[in-house]
């Protein structure tokens, strides 16, 4: 049970700032996902918490105690690596037992703890196998068991499922979430997959260029992005540039009313916030329909050359070239990188005939 505090962390490699000024509190038992594009510094943050990189500025506190300069072997953290990093010259049990042996535990206790840890990740009876005899998913489970068996205060995971296929990734994600809840272990999880972050996290931290862009719950991150970057990075989003004049947007399709100073803005609309009605003479034509089974994704060409993505129920039928009229139920307004307003629109029951 532990609390993690990052205070004004900064890290440079060769005079390039990788992390600028990062502060974050992770509560006891919380699972926080660090999400960002490659090069955003998310792995560097994790490696600093694990002790594999030393920050140039700032402090890392675990339960209020300063651990900034403590070497990794003395930190109460357990790390799971992307490449699983299992020791191939040891058996599965040998991998899990290594840290326990270093702590000088009696043999019987080590054996019991190893068995418990392997059972926890669903690998009961695999102890005598060699590491290379296991599948990729099983290897990553061993790596998780190896980290958990030492009962770390903070569990660190560095894109642990990135090399696995989609199905396995989803399964392991659920299992990890289960184990994490059961043990109540404070967890920092690095990923570049937004679906992974949305599915796993109690809170998501979106990083960009070494700085925190937004910290929010998955729900708020998806439905209320605070910056244009987050709006574009999490999920898919339609951006329509236009001007605000006298509190109304001058976009030909979406005249949005908002108390916003005049000037250029971008209207941000989620595909699922769009409804398409068959219409004539609108100049907006269906370009492509992709059937995902659960929904249709319809690409619509706009008269000004832009394109909209709209999510439609699977029962709907659209033909390529068909004329449609889109309606939005929720629009966010951005100017530059900042959000100006969010507007929920009443649905017009207008049918274009």
């Amino acid at each position: 049970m532990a609390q993690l505090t990052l205070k004004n962390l900064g890290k440079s490699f060769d005079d390039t700032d990788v992390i600028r000024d990062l502060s974050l509190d992770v509560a006891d038992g919380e699972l926080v996902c660090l999400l960002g594009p490659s090069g955003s510094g998310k792995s560097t943050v994790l490696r600093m918490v694990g002790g594999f990189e030393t920050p140039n500025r700032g402090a890392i506190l675990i339960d209020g105690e300063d651990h900034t300069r403590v070497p990794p072997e003395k930190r109460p953290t357990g790390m799971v690596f992307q490449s699983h990093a299992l020791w191939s010259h040891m058996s599965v049990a040998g991998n899990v037992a290594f840290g326990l042996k270093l702590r000088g535990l009696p043999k019987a206790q080590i054996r019991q703890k190893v068995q418990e840890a392997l059972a926890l990740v669903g690998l009961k009876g695999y102890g005598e196998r060699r590491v290379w005899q296991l599948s990729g998913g099983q290897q990553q489970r061993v790596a998780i068991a190896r980290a958990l068996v030492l009962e770390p205060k903070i569990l660190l995971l560095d894109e642990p499922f990135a090399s696995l296929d989609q199905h396995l990734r989803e399964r392991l994600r659920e299992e990890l979430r289960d184990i994490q809840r059961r043990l109540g272990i404070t967890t920092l999880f690095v990923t570049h997959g937004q679906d992974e972050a949305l599915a796993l996290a109690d809170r998501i931290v979106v990083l960009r260029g070494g700085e925190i862009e937004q910290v929010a719950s998955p729900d708020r991150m998806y439905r209320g992005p605070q910056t244009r970057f987050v709006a574009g990075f999490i999920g898919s989003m339609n951006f329509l540039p236009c001007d605000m004049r006298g509190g109304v947007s001058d976009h030909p399709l979406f005249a949005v009313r908002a108390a916003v100073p005049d000037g250029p803005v971008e209207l941000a609309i989620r595909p699922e916030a769009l409804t398409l009605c068959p219409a004539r003479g609108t100049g907006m034509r269906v370009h492509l329909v992709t059937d995902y089974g659960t929904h249709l994704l319809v690409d619509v060409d706009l008269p000004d050359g832009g394109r909209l993505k709209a999510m439609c129920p699977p029962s709907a039928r659209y033909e390529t070239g068909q004329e449609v009229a889109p309606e939005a139920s929720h629009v966010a307004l951005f100017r530059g990188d900042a959000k100006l307003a969010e507007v929920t629109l009443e649905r017009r029951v207008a049918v274009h005939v």
Partner: protein
Amino acid sequence: MTAIDPSTLAADVPVHRTKRPDWLGVALALALGVVVVIPLLVVAIWAFAEVWRYPSLLPQEFGFRFWEATLARPDVWNAMSLSLRLSVTVTLLSALICLPAAYAFARLDFPGRNVLFLSFLTSHAFPKFGLLVAIAGIFLNLGLISTFWGVVLIQLVGTLMMMIWIPVAAFQNVDRAMEEAARDAGAGPIRVFWSVSLPQAAPTIFAAVLLSFVGTFYETEGAWLIGAPEIRTMPVLMITYINNQIVVQYGAVLSVLLWVPSFIALMFTRRLVGSGSFAKGFGV
């Protein structure tokens, strides 16, 4: 649409072709085998021949006369035991000095790293004999000439390059995340080296150790220049034999005797690391 004849389809399947043995490879292996094995075979036969006159393909008389004559000499046994003690000492010392150094070269970044790394090549970049004569001059002043440790020192220099360069490559190939995972589990840097880096690099390092052992065992110039006259290793003894008497059999018997340690070392290493990873250690 025309119907496709299934037999033409089957003929295109390349599975049958890959199963055919690679004759070119077999021929090359055979040719290489002839070049390597036949001289060894001739020497081995000479060691057991008592009379072998041209143009006979095999000796007229086989026997152990020359073996008895050779093995009866105490200097042969002294030289054998001395050679073994020298090679083991040099190889162990070399491993003790070079392996941590190789790890440092592979993992640490320190000033002068590249220059120092290349300096290990210099002992092999210049004519060795000139270097040895210069060292012999220094050793003479230090009283190391004709002593066991003098020869150990000179032979140690010869193993440095092999015991640094090959293990450096081996350590560089060890996944850094494996070492970090060990740190994470609570192991200090030395423990990480001992429990993770060294075992991971083991097959290649065994190959380097074996090559050093065999190379030291057969090293002649240094042993002769520094060791003479008191320290006489097997190869030095063999040269004296060949120089003093033109009886082929003495040389052949000693030569066969010389194979024994390297053969044992090879078998031992094979058993220890398994032939698969052993071949991998040599880059096969």
